[in-house]
């Protein structure tokens, strides 16, 4: 899993049926110091995460399909948690 911060949303009218009714969040990935790595991912929200929140991203297809309950979904990244705190070397 990866840690990132929600910095945007993607609005889309024309999409595959699996996307209908789901929020797509633009998440900037972060390193353990909380700095942005420059990479990003568009992830499907499953935890009602909001703007600016630090979140846990699952970036693996089979797990994502299981979380969504959609065995055929062409989705790899989902937001699966809202991070309260990261402690390194504690």
């Amino acid at each position, binding site marked *: 899993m990866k840690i990132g911060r929600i910095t945007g949303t993607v*609005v889309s009218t024309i999409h595959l049926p699996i996307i209908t009714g789901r929020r797509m969040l633009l998440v900037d990935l972060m390193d353990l110091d909380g700095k942005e790595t420059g990479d990003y991912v568009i992830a499907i929200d499953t935890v009602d995460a909001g703007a600016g929140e630090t979140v846990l991203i699952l970036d693996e297809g089979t797990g994502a399909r299981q979380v969504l309950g959609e065995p055929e979904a062409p989705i790899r990244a989902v937001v699966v948690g809202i991070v309260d705190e990261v402690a390194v070397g504690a």
Partner: protein
Amino acid sequence: MHLARVTGTVVASTITPGLEGTRLLILQPLDRKLKPKGSAVVAADAVAMAGPDELVYYVASREAAVAMPETFVPVDHAVIGIADAVHEVES
């Protein structure tokens, strides 16, 4: 999923079984600020509606094969939606 700009199309009249009739697009992957990042790729258009200059989002690898109407055809990138807008959100 990542963002990309459609920069062209590919026509292949001889193509592997399962991909007949599939629209092929040239995608320029974009970074967070919608600036070009990395090399262009050829992607199948799973929504069959994306056109030149459009902002789209796409999936890669196995997810691309699953996205197509006939699943597990040999594609490694697929467009699964057209992005109307990317909204920046403030924390």
